[in-house]
């Protein structure tokens, strides 16, 4: 038998068996105890596998990464270098440029996806072809980032002035006598970064829209009706009633988008690999680690990224909790 098949069977059958075995054994153990101890022990026994996995696959690597970030490049014989890797990050022009790009991503990617998602959700809310419109806008999310990169490479394609423009955008602006513009090759004003942000906005607006739209459906129609009866204009209804009620949803969507923007990697890697002032922190991390083999610096970048995301995650969890306690 093919060894891969054997492994597959072992995993598919073995994992549930071990878990079931664990539960069975722990229940037998609990049965031996008296009622008071049972109440104390049982939840921990049930939690233990999840905690073990979390500890092994999340906490342990995180701690190790933090330690590694204080060590030198050499992976066979790492030496303690203190905060040198962090110092490198905050004094290196390329690294700071990448950090700045992430800030641009955070502001513009989040702003556009949430803003446009809200706009579309509200606009199509009461029209006949709503399902169609939403499906079409949601569609790009199903495309993988790399495939989206390839598609947009054709959109942004550049040919010298005077020859036929094969890129869709340059052909379009060529018709009105402009360009051609090297969309992906223009570091000035970080144009290329914005060109890449536009691709991700195209992909993720649908996601924001779907969630906002669902929240929109949840708003009591009678509430809106009452406002209209009282003579509120459509704008006032939106501004004073819909928007505040959407508040928690918008926060959750925004934080999700912020985290997505901080994690941006694959689209940049496929389109420019960080050239033309488009580098982002995650790409820098991959480069330091896999291309240069500098595990110390890569770990430092990872820790910086983690520290940047942590407060947002915390905020998100607090929001979830307060929402749950409301309902």
């Amino acid at each position, binding site marked *: *038998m093919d*060894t891969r098949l*054997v*492994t597959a*069977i*072992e995993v598919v*059958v*073995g994992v*549930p*068996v071990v878990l*079931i*075995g664990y*539960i*069975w054994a722990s*229940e037998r153990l609990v049965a031996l105890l008296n009622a008071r101890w049972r109440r104390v022990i049982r939840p921990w026994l049930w939690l233990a596998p999840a905690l073990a996995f979390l500890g092994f696959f999340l906490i342990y690597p995180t701690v190790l990464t933090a330690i590694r970030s204080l060590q*030198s*490049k*050499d*992976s*066979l014989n790492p030496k303690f270098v203190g905060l040198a890797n962090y110092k490198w990050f905050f004094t290196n*022009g390329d690294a700071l440029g990448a950090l700045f790009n992430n800030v641009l991503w955070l502001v513009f990617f989040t702003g556009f996806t949430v803003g446009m998602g809200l706009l579309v959700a509200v606009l199509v809310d009461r029209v006949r072809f709503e399902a169609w419109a939403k499906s079409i806008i949601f569609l790009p999310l199903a495309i993988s980032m790399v495939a989206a990169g390839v598609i947009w490479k054709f959109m942004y*394609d*550049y*040919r*010298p*002035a005077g*020859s036929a423009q094969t890129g869709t955008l340059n052909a379009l602006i060529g018709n009105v006598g402009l360009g051609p513009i*090297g969309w*992906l*090759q223009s*570091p*000035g004003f970080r144009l290329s970064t914005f060109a890449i942000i536009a691709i991700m906005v195209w992909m993720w607006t649908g996601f924001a829209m779907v969630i906002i739209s669902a929240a929109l459906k949840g708003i009591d129609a009678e509430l809106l009706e009452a406002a209209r009866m009282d003579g509120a204009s459509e704008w006032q209804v939106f501004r004073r009633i819909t928007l505040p009620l959407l508040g928690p949803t918008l926060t959750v969507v925004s934080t999700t988008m912020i985290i997505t923007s901080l994690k941006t990697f694959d689209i940049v*890697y*496929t389109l420019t*690999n*960080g*050239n*033309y*002032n488009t580098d982002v922190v995650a790409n820098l991390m991959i*480069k330091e*680690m*896999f*291309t*240069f*083999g*500098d*595990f110390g610096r890569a770990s430092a970048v990872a820790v910086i990224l983690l520290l940047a995301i942590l407060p947002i995650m915390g905020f998100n969890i607090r929001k979830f909790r307060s929402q749950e306690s409301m309902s």
Partner: protein
Amino acid sequence: MSLWLRRLAPLAVVVVVAAGCVSTNSSSGDDSDLHGKTVNVIGTWGGDEQTAFLKMVEPWEKQTGAKVKYTGTRDINTVLTTGVASGVLPDLAGLPGPGQLAEYAKAGKLKPLDNVLDIKTYQSETAPALAQLGKSDGKVYGVFIKAAVKGLIWYNTKVHDYGANPPKTWTDLMSQASANQGAAKDVWCLGVESGASSGWPGTDWIEDLVLRTAGPQVYTNWYEGKVKWTDPAIKKAFQMYVTDVVGKSYGGGKNAVATNFGNAGDPMFANPPGCELLHQASFITTFSQFKSHTAGTDYNFFPFPDIDPQYAGAVEGAGDLFGMFHDTPAAKSLMKYLVTADAQDIWVKIGGALSANEDAIDYPDEVSKQSAAILAHAKSFVFDASDSMPTAMNDAFWSAMVALTNGSKTVDQVLSDLDRAQKDAYTS
């Protein structure tokens, strides 16, 4: 606990134990008999090159009954760096350059090949310069599966045939090129885009210019990190590149950074032609328009002209260096086979490759025969400098060439960037 769970659990345990038994049964066999064995090979080849490689190993597979499992990747550095750290390595792998070869050999990851190859035959058949590059501490750790001559200048014979009177010096080249431009808009075809390694065709330009203006010694010191980038000898090459190459290129630097190196020669065959000359290695014949035209009649090349006469006859080359990470009998047997003239002839005949083995002579046309002759008869031979630098330096060099070609940075800016990267990359 429910009843069904109690019944199910022992049953599942039986299945796992049974499966475990099956998997242990399958690992048995004789060491000398290679039948049914597999050799894992990782290289950078895809498409036509991958097909050619698989053709090359076919006779070996038939003869031994073993199989080659080839994986192609554009990111060999990543695969090997993580592989060395984790211990999961292929049996045979392409190495980015002699620098990595030495690094992995020192770390004890690569196996020496002195007892694997038929070393006497290998040494007598192989171009000495290439054999030397596969060595580290006096032992052979790498062999060239195929090789390429860099810095050839390709032209469309219909626009102007340089065959009778190829330019001998750089000045000669520049004046002839402008005189013979004909209907071509610009002198140089230029394209430096290449995905994650964008910029390398630009580094090849700089290397050829440094080699011929400053000589092999400076060239070597330069990639070893002993010469600064802002050194006048290196700076001169960058300035020549900007004025004589980018300034005279089809569509300018903006177009060059948006054009893939494989398609850079396309305007040469367009009507009217966009550019006259393309600087590229011998392997370009398997790309885009070169593939659909005939070597020798539709296009041809002349070697990179000399610039400073005292460094005449220097040639830059590159190649696919292969090393062995696991010395299994099958891997050894395959390695031994790959360097033989019989094996090398298979790829050579398909085209696009030169062989380090001088007894492989089945070149498909005059053009490849000529480039093979350049490789065999070079007065001094140097390996691709950027591929010999530490990866961080190489990567910075690539990015610098993209920024410089694009015009977003000046020569002085990229050189001081590179100096900073140099300080960082060579200390580890």
